[in-house]
């Protein structure tokens, strides 16, 4: 590995979240009964004609603008011809030589360094249907619900040099698409998937090595593993004195193994030609400027704002802004409790862990942002201790109850009355002569034990700062 440099380029397919399909009025929604979202047009009946969904163009232009692309004032659609049962017209309508967007880039952090990856092009195309293999009868059935759902294909330059960079690129791209609200980006449903083009070359060599293309990866984990597998495979081949062949490969995530699918010689000749049933796409400056105006604040801008406006560390800002949903939640909570760091800590700490374990998103949880804000306010005004806050949080997560109600119901209000705490302190000190002696003999550790006993006695409600202060006073008397 250390002698080779890896070169990676990604082709990312994102299904656009338009209400209707690319060329007809059928619903583009995912997950309905097979063949219920189709009509003569998207099933390729003889004689039908396509009418382009303007939303698909608008969404693709948004993606182009958000990735610093040039937007073509004139582009066209082309037919990509091939036979497959999930493709009822026997051609996919795509864009060949005149894509909607080109020459862009995105930037992201890899470790401490800023990485820029070029975007070669973004074009619109239609999705194919789905083949379902019936294990019981042995039949293969076609579900055409997905036929002609609009897609964008985002092709990167071969600018990535490791699996980590590829994953970061994917994550950044995903967050951009989510911010734009143009794709669900649900990898498990196939609405975001990618093909990995990969080659290796001896460090210092200018020319690229022969590349392979691993198709249709639909989770970050499989992208990572497929890349690592392919790097190792290519190194092994070269080290063994063999050649790398230009080929299309398939990744089996269950087996953790990649297979060659077809070689360059077997590659399809797609016989691209301009789609005669559709007029060229001509966009005016006004149209593009309108879309520009509608673009939301993008993650990298938001991150900078969090750092300056909320004084959040870069790491926190990056983490929170990587998801539009999380950022929205964060801002709502901060607007109420005015303690950005505390909100960030919750969101990145216990909250994130629990969401992960329950496999839900922040907006799907029972804790409303105003509720999290209240919990923080209760801690900030010392009504409860941070230890109690953690317990209350678990309760909130499970029941969705208001923080104040939980605190009231369970009598968790913090004791800050010095008189009351002093009584407990004195009792514990008198009951633990050995620890007191240890402390006096210079063993500072003993103090921790004593604090623990006091907190236990107060059922965690004693204010820790007051406990510390009073304990030292008593001990040093």
């Amino acid at each position, binding site marked *: 590995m250390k002698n080779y440099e890896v070169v990676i380029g990604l082709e990312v397919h994102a299904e656009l979240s338009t209400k209707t399909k690319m060329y007809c009025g059928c619903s583009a929604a995912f997950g309905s009964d097979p063949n219920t979202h189709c009509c003569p047009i998207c099933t390729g*009946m*003889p004689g039908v*004609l396509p009418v382009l969904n303007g939303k698909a163009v608008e969404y693709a232009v948004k993606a182009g603008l958000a990735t610093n692309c040039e937007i073509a004032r004139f582009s066209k659609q082309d*037919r990509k011809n091939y*036979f497959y049962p999930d493709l*009822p017209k*026997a051609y996919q309508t795509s864009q060949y030589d005149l894509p909607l967007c080109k020459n862009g880039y995105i930037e992201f952090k890899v470790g401490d360094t800023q990485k820029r990856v070029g975007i070669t092009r973004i074009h619109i195309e239609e999705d194919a249907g789905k083949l379902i293999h019936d294990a019981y009868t042995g039949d293969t059935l*076609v579900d055409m619900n997905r036929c002609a759902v609009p897609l964008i294909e985002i092709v990167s330059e071969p600018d990535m040099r490791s699996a980590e960079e590829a994953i970061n690129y994917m994550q950044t791209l995903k967050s951009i698409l989510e911010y734009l609200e143009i794709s669900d980006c649900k990898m498990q449903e196939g609405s975001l998937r990618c093909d990995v083009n990969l080659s290796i070359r001896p460090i210092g060599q200018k020319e690229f090595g022969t590349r392979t293309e691993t198709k249709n990866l639909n989770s970050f984990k499989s992208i990572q593993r497929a890349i690592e597998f392919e790097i190792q495979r290519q190194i092994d081949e070269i080290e063994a004195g063999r050649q790398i062949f230009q080929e299309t490969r398939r990744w089996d995530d269950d087996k953790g193994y990649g297979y060659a699918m077809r070689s360059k010689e077997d590659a399809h000749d797609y016989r691209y030609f301009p789609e005669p049933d*559709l*007029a060229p796409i001509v966009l005016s400056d006004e149209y593009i400027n309108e879309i520009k105006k509608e673009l939301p604040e993008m993650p990298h801008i938001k991150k900078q704002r969090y750092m300056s406006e909320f004084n959040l560390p870069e790491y926190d800002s990056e983490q929170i802004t990587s998801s539009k949903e999380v950022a929205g939640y964060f801002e709502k909570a901060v607007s109420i409790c005015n303690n950005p760091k505390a909100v960030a800590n919750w969101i990145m700490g216990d909250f994130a862990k629990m969401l992960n374990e329950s496999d839900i998103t922040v907006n799907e949880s029972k804790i409303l942002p105003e509720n999290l804000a209240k919990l923080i306010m209760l801690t900030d005004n010392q009504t409860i201790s941070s230890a109690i806050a953690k317990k209350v949080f678990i309760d909130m997560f499970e029941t969705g109850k208001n923080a104040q109600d939980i605190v009231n119901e369970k009598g968790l209000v913090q004791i800050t009355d010095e008189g009351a705490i002093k009584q407990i302190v004195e009792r514990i000190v008198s009951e633990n002569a050995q620890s007191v002696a240890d402390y006096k003999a210079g063993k500072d550790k003993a103090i921790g034990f004593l604090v623990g006993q006091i907190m236990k006695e107060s059922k965690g409600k004693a204010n820790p700062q007051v406990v510390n202060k009073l304990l030292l006073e008593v001990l040093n008397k």
Partner: protein
Amino acid sequence: MDLYKLSLSEIAKKIKSKEVSIKDVLDSVYSRIEDVESKINAYVTLTKENAYKRAEILQIKLDAGEDIGVLGGVPIAIKDNICIKDVKTTCSSRMLQNFVPPYTATVVEKLENMGAIVLGKTNMDEFAMGSSTESSYIKKTCNPWDLSRVPGGSSGGSAASVSADMAYASLGSDTGGSIRQPASLCSVVGLKPTYGVVSRYGLVAFASSLDQIGPFSKTVEDAAIMLNAISGHDTMDSTSADIEYPDYTKSLVNDVNGFKIGIPTKFISEGLNPDVKKAYEESIELLKNKGAQIVEIDLDYAKYSLAVYYILATAEASSNLGRYDGIKYGYRTKDFDDLTDLYKKSRTEGFGAEVKRRIILGTYVLSSGYYDAYYKKAQQVRTLIINDFKKAYEKVDVIMVPTAPNTAFKFGEKTENPIEMYLEDIFTVPVNIAGLPGISIPCGFDSKNMPIGLQFIADAFEESKLLRVAYTYEQNTGFHKIKPEIK
């Protein structure tokens, strides 16, 4: 009186005035079909039951004083590559022999909204590929003027049905001459509108950038009435023209005084049958006498039209016909080993020779490495041809050429030599390449009494000019009144 002999406008008036019932009209046409269809074989499917049902409904409306449309109760025929819901649409191919579309083409909806009644679906060259209707898998349509000769094609059934008085009008489709050439061979009026004037939604595609639906009729007036009914912007067809559509019947003026008619002498000098040439020259004289100005024009690139056509049309066809793969609908082979075998056998058995020839040609010209030499070059020449016409229309109102270099030929005469068959379209193909409107009208007969057609070509969206000159010619000749004696 034999109602079936009347023109569309005549029968529509009689129905409207309740001089005759719609049922009487249907009875007359269907009995005519019974008498001569066994000799002509124009129809693939008759929709008699539906026709009588519609007749009944329309008659009730008419009797109740409702307006049933300009085509109210008029029986017409539809080429079998235009979809009608629940009626077989075969494209005269084994591939679609049992295909029943789940939707109706825009043109048919429009005709029905205007009160027309569909008599049946007409025979054609398979997938509209041919100039004689001989490539039909279903049947052999004969020319009403001589049963041993072809009716032309590809809309041979539509032309023959009107020529033999088996329909008052019909719809055809024209990709390289498929309306005008059979109209010429059968002595009826055939109009190919400007690309985009008639919606293609529901027309089974052959070559998408060239295909256009148009009417066959007994008179120029009827062609104008039909064009009024079927033209117009359609949101279902992205190539449909969003323009102001005129009332085409307003162009039916018997006057060409000062009209400039372009004659591309060089272009039509080769391969022209002497009888056709004579009729053409007489037509020039006639129009000159009516006050038209005859202007010599050049169409330098028109001679490359056939070459361009057989690249672009086949390229588009190879893609358009990919969907007939034996998976979803249409013909599927009985025995197959795997998916590839299923595709191969279904397409080998489902398509006829001419269709396969064109799919292979089209696949070849789009193949990587050949695209630039063929498809791209053809597109460039297409632009030159368009410019040729543009230049011409700076000088003239319409261009006049024969519709076809020859009259109807015998069955089998040209099937052995596809190139000879392709040459029959030399005067019609340039019009499709340039997306222009063209009309063929009867202009005489050859020594064997076979009809000759005269073609007018106008600039895009200038159908009104076409209709005016064609109407004037028709009113001053009367060839359209001469009917074939079917024997």
